[in-house]
């Protein structure tokens, strides 16, 4: 089963503002490993090669915090979504 199909099963109430962001793209540009991309269980992170920027799609974030911990440069500003927004688990 593809990850995108699994994520389709999850209920989200997406905010119009992101709760996660890169602090400094210059640091990401020099980061060879970019472990945030593989580390995220919901494929929220991607490397946009043209601009050489690391981008995040916060809408499908499962709020686990793996990116926050795995970033070797502490370069991710990570907060919880505002009250009521974000992932809403049926089972948990």
């Amino acid at each position, binding site marked *: *089963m593809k*990850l995108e199909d*699994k*994520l389709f*099963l*999850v209920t989200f*109430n997406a905010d119009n503002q992101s709760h996660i962001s890169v602090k400094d793209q210059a640091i990401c540009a020099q980061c060879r*490993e970019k*472990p945030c991309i*593989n*580390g995220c*269980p*919901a*494929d929220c992170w991607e490397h946009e090669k043209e601009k050489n920027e690391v981008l995040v799609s916060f809408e499908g974030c*499962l*709020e*686990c*915090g*793996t990116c*926050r*911990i*795995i970033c*070797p440069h*502490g370069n991710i500003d*990570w*907060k*919880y*979504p*505002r*009250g*009521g927004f*974000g*992932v*809403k*688990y*049926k*089972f*948990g």
Partner: protein
Amino acid sequence: MADEKFDAIVVGAGPAGLTAAIAMAQAGLEVAVLERGAFAGSKNVMGGIFYRHPLDQLLPEFWKQAPVERAIVEQRYWLLGPNGHMGGGVRSQSFAPETPNCWSVFRSKFDRWLSEQAEQAGVMLLTEATVESLLQENGKVVGVHTSLDDGDLNAEVVVIADGVNSLLLRDLGVHPEIKPNQVASSVKEIISLPAEKIADRFNVEPGQGVSIELFGSFTQGAVGLGFLYSNQESISLGLGILVSDLARLKLKTSDILEALKEHPSIRPLIAGGKTEEYLAHLIPEGGYHAVPRVSGEGWVAVGDAAMLVDNLHREGSNLAVKSGILAGQTIVRAKEKGDFSAAGLAGYQQALEASFVMKDLKKYRRLPHWLESSPQFFNIYPELMNDAGTEFLTVDGAGKREKQNRILKMVSRRRGLWGAVMDAVKGGLKLK
């Protein structure tokens, strides 16, 4: 709201926060619980086993009303190799049905129910309320700043129960940022199956279930564990991998889970099932040495926020409940004395040390570092043990002594006899 002052504000409606709130409300304290989700439990994830003890001390016979799934009557431990597994387990009717030892549960349903018990005890539950920071005066925590419109709330004491990521403890400077080798990144799927199929596949009576802890080569050499729990009409299948190993070995938890579903020992158990939900969460893995200071001026920390997880026994929610109860009781005494200072709340740390929570974490304090520095348990032994077992039980004309020699050669070639002996000796010492 700023004029009102609660005795206690609890941040986070998980098992730790809610039990702390219930313990305080039962003693007559004015308590508010702030939950960032739409309802208590909507953000909460765990593998899925909840123990009767110690919640039954706070809410006697809670399981007769609570939304539990199956009473676990058999706990299996499987060491997975590439082609199968070797395993053991304990099954006993004394685990059920009168006073079950533990159940499979869904946190989204269970925590919501627990929050209703808290409300009935007099707790004010505010949902959709994200706590953004702690209010402090002269080095003392005096309340919280929330995402609500009129967002500041004051209290004598704040119970920090905001989970494994605990941004509040970090901002308070209690512990530096969590290290990648102190947490596991975990993913889980809920896979639905009819109740009769589950009863047949796991050989259980209605309402009874099986837990299987999974170790082995499926983690691709990373420090990690998997689990498979039977629910009423579904299977919870998941795994956790140490975040530092995810980075080091460039692994993806979602890929490992997908491969695990295809493992020959797992596939028949979930065959024909339909995935209903996919979840992710961090699990504290640092053990005793990762536990931060748990109380201070006007605050206490409970549950995952305080990193209270016993990984070897995959116990977490029971430690959370115990810490919640002890924190609640400490605050009740602090209220009687009118002393919410660090000294007035210090009894919580002492009570935690005297309980099974810190005693167990202390017993296994050497485990996290040992596992992390012993990759052979994840990249050599699982396949070796399975191959040895298969060799021993395969009848191919070779005598049993010859079989024994083949196995010794296997061990010698892949790990070294001396290494294997030392692993066994060290294991005994590290867990004693």
